[in-house]
């Protein structure tokens, strides 16, 4: 299943991209991120773990990103969250006259579990939850980047 959320940030594309690309900095920007460990970073390829607080408990995912300055961060999770077979996506950054539009898109596949009901309804429920997390995170990034831009 595919989903996407986007936001306008009143800052230049380089500054905006830098905030998202600096994965260790996410701990300062997103309140539910408890820890980030950067395992490998060569400027294009990144591998990291991220521990987040969720209503159902603490989750650690391992992610890989491909960083194309300043337009695109492509990602996948070789170790996705529980119940998820595949999680991949892109953060895309588009320059506008007065700032940057950030679009977060995700493609996911849930693990099949007949005990939990039909896959389609679980997909929709998960998609709504994921959209919510993306929208909240985009708002946090917007606030952080625009506040830094003013000071």
């Amino acid at each position, binding site marked *: 299943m595919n989903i996407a959320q986007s936001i306008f940030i009143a800052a230049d594309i380089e500054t905006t991209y830098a905030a998202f690309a600096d994965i260790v900095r996410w701990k300062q920007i997103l309140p539910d991120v408890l820890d980030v460990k950067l395992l*490998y970073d*060569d*400027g*294009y*390829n990144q*591998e990291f773990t991220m521990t987040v607080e969720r209503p159902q408990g603490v989750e650690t995912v391992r992610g890989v990103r491909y960083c*194309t300055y300043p337009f695109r961060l492509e990602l*996948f999770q*070789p170790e996705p969250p529980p119940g998820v077979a*595949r999680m991949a996506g892109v953060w895309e950054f588009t320059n506008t006259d007065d700032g940057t539009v950030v679009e977060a898109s995700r493609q996911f596949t849930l693990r099949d579990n007949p005990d939990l009901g039909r896959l389609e309804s679980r997909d929709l429920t998960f998609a709504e939850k994921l959209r919510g997390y993306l929208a909240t995170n985009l708002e946090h990034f917007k606030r952080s980047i625009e506040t830094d831009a003013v000071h």
Partner: protein
Amino acid sequence: MTEYTTFAKTLSEELVIDRPVDVVYGALHKLADWPKHLPHVPAVDILYDDGTYQEFRMEVISEGGKRIRVRSIRKCNGGDRIEFFQPQPPVFLRHHAGFWTFKDQGQGTLVGTRHYWTVEETAASEQFPTNTGEHVKGLLAEHARFALSTWKKVLEA
């Protein structure tokens, strides 16, 4: 190409394999079959594979018979390019990444491999006390040429 601009060093090698592009790409993409084709790769442990993104550990028999295990992560575009990096490269490297390319040449395929790296200076100097940079480049070039020639031999057989 903006993706590899932070790397200090690079090399490339290429040759033509007399097989169609889809056959050559398919052979390099299908990790599970590598031990069947490649005598120096006795085992591949696939950790993740969704067709586009792959993570695997492979056991390699190096020159001198030493067995080493390497973890690699790859991004495959489905037709003409496979990118790779080693999150834990050999001790004398700080970073190691690159890509394979596959170009239709009519009856055959022009296969290219490009490597990018930065040296871990202290470990590299200990392992190669003289002409460190040249030794590291030579080792990676030899590895690249060996991989290409092995695939050529296997696929043209």
